């Protein structure tokens, strides 16, 4: 079952990603991004990472992309003032370079193999929660500083009057 679902959701994720980088209108790009993120969430479920799948949907697709959409509507660039993007040699080179990186990553990943013994109940809410508040407590605490910085920073830059 997993190969089929993997192929399906993998294809949706890649398709959504391709749409993100090819859409002219940022709104369609944002919606494609949601599609891709949902597909990735499904892949997380396939890997028994239920907690992360939920977070992916709630935080990523839910909050982050909504923020994007919010900003898109806020600044609301008219269609005719969107940057004009034509295929150029430079862009082709960019695609080629990214393709090379993909091939390199693929070649390196090809011989990845997991130990046969591995059993994964690591993605459940309980397992993640336990790890998060024992071994990774520090990381969890650091994110609070990170988020505080982001909040302060976003306010400084975006509020009308400082």
């Amino acid at each position: 079952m997993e190969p089929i679902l993997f192929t399906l959701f993998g294809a949706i994720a890649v398709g959504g990603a391709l749409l993100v980088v090819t859409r002219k209108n940022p709104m369609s790009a944002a919606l494609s991004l949601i599609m891709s993120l949902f597909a990735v969430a499904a892949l997380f479920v396939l890997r028994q990472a239920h907690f992360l799948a939920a977070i992916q949907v709630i935080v990523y697709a839910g909050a982050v992309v909504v923020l994007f959409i919010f900003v898109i509507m806020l600044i609301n660039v008219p269609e005719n003032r969107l940057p004009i993007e034509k295929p150029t040699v430079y862009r082709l080179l960019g695609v080629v370079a990214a393709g090379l990186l993909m091939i390199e990553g693929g070649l390196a990943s090809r011989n990845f193999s997991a130990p046969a013994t591995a059993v994964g109940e690591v993605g459940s809410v309980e397992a993640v929660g336990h790890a998060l508040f024992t071994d990774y407590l520090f990381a969890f605490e650091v994110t609070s500083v990170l988020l505080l910085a982001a909040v302060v920073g976003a306010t400084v830059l975006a509020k009308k009057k400082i």
Partner: protein
Amino acid sequence: MIAIPFDSSQVMQGIASIAPEAILVCTAITVLMADLFLAEDGKWLLCWLSLAGVLAALGEVYLLGSSRIVGFSGMITSDGFGMFFSTVVLSACALVLLMATGWSERAGTQKGEFYSLILMSTTGMLIMAKGTDLMTIFLGLETLSIPIYVLVGFQRSRMTAIEGALKYFLLGAFGAAFMLYGMALIYAATGTTKIPVLVYMSVGGGMAGSSLFLAGMGLLLVGFAFKVSLFPFHMWTPDAYEGAPTLVTAFMSAAVKAAAFAALVRVAMLLFPGVSPAIGPVLWVLAVLTMTVGNISALGQNNVKRILAYSSIAHAGYIMVGLVAGDLLGSQAALFYLLVYAFMNIGAFGVLMLISQKEDDGYDIHNLRGIGFKYPVLGALLTLFLVSLAGIPPTGGFIGKFYLFSAAVKNGYIWLAILGVLNSAASIYYYLRIVVYMYFMTPEGEVVTPHTPPFGYALALCACAAVVLVLGMIPGAVLTMAEQSVLSLLM
């Protein structure tokens, strides 16, 4: 339901290992709160409050000393290496805050947000420097970067500032993604992100055959290279440096670079030996290209801030020479150089901030005409810092370069040393050019009137000058300290 065991001794140990960071975060929050209650004419307190916090953190670093404290299941370690870089980062932060006392008023940064962002960024730097887990390094990197993105664009009504912020942000996120991808590949190859375990697995070339691990190391290197601005990952540097408020530029060039190099040195000293035949040439090429491109690009610049930005790229290349050498001496030299670099660069920016009347045009080299003789102290200070950057004795910059290049020679990288010394010789040209403008060019019209630095500012400049000179004449103690800290890393 699995109960989470509570081991108070471990918690205490963990808190001890991050005590300086905790002090900084508390100060940051206090500053934010105080900002709400202070009247407009009382805002100057914020700066001193932040400074007090930084000094307290610095004191705490020394209270902890160089003894090894492993905190939070090996996520972070306070040791001699961490102490050295905490010293560098916190002194850089303290100097910048001292300068802010005389500068924020007119630059419009006399705000709680400004100081708390600086403090949070400093926290991130300490975390990055002390992190012994790839995750900690990544989180530290982000915690230091996000406030910096904002600080670059802090004067958001200035187009260059906000443009610099955008560029730095987009590329920073892009670069961080590469680093993250590298970490993922390393994790895939080894099943762990803890550096000590990685060392155990990779020592003696245990992982040298794994292309997954190699690719991961390469991408990790890309991430670091971006942060320390090595060619070809350096392009954001001049733009972000030019756009940022100069105080932030000084902070970035000294502290961010030091923190990023701290993590890079840790990784390079511990993990690169396992893959050295593969990664050695890469580092060699990066070092040479970075020096050359940085120096050559600086030659024709007319904006002093940009000159110093390119010079900072070149200096990243010099420091890489120490990493290419790859032994104790090389890393020791790199550490020493980062310390000196922090002081001389902040000093140079500090003097320039006084001379320039405003951002952007204020940093045109022509504004320096006639400064040298009219304001001899400022001129002499700037000359001292530039001489040190150029690596001329008897300054700390010379000792640092001497060590870096002799480490290269010692390890048989003769050509690297030759190219390095040649580069250093070429770099004299543009440092000298600034001095020439100060002393040997007659001003067209009035000589600009520098701002009179208040006490704190003057103190910071004098401290920079003193450190640069003292490290040039009696560097022994600091070199020993650098040696000890690298040794504590290798333990």
